[in-house]
């Protein structure tokens, strides 16, 4: 299941819903991305007071659905969930939730890792940061590309 929304989400409620009524599920792995108050690439010097996430309506949903389908092809998952927010967010705010549920711990953990890695390189979102020196578009990290290629 995928959702692209401006509003915040409730992690506990989302994970409960993922497993609800399915006692085959033995494990739920999840990753939550939060807005940091600094830029990792800038060495942590640059304070970030807010983030604006732009996306490509239509293609975003299409890509997230493809990524989710790929995870289902690769692992025995009973359920998967991707929620990604857009709009203006402040440090500590939730950006993204990926979660996977499976009878098997290893499948849930690997698929969750896979989903966030693929999402980073394949979902059409762009971040712009508000810093003391003005607005700045975040640049893609080489590590993200490498992480994505590791799953081929």
């Amino acid at each position, binding site marked *: 299941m995928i959702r692209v929304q401006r509003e915040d989400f409730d992690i506990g409620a989302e994970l409960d819903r993922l497993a609800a009524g399915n006692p085959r599920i033995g494990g739920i792995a999840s990753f939550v991305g939060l807005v940091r108050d600094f830029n990792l690439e800038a060495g942590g010097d640059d304070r970030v007071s807010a983030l604006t996430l732009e996306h*490509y309506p239509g*293609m975003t949903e299409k890509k997230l659905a493809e990524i989710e389908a790929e995870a289902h092809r690769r692992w025995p998952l009973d359920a998967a969930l991707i929620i990604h927010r857009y709009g203006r967010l402040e440090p500590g705010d939730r*950006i993204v939730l990926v979660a996977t549920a499976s009878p098997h711990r290893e499948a849930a953990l690997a698929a969750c890792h896979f989903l966030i890695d693929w*999402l980073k390189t394949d*979902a059409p*979102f*762009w971040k712009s940061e508000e810093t003391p020196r003005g607005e700045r*578009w975040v640049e893609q990290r080489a590590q993200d590309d490498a992480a994505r290629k590791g799953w081929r």
Partner: protein
Amino acid sequence: MSVQLLYFAWLRARIGRGEEELELPPAVRDVAGLLEFLRSRGGRYAEALADLSVVRVAVNQDYVERDHPVRGGDEVAIFPPVTGG
């Protein structure tokens, strides 16, 4: 033929608009040709598209390479590498 163009992130900011309908000359057959045509319009286009190595393109909401055909009615989106998650 005419295509629907979409720009995102700093490409949108530099070009100064998020979308436009554009009539393409018949010589434009693929993504490479489209990017060259846009650059040839000069001004903000030439500036925004100066370094094509940091430009990604999707046709009808799929990532494509430069040799992908562009046809009338296509939705062509031009943007920098994605940074979500």
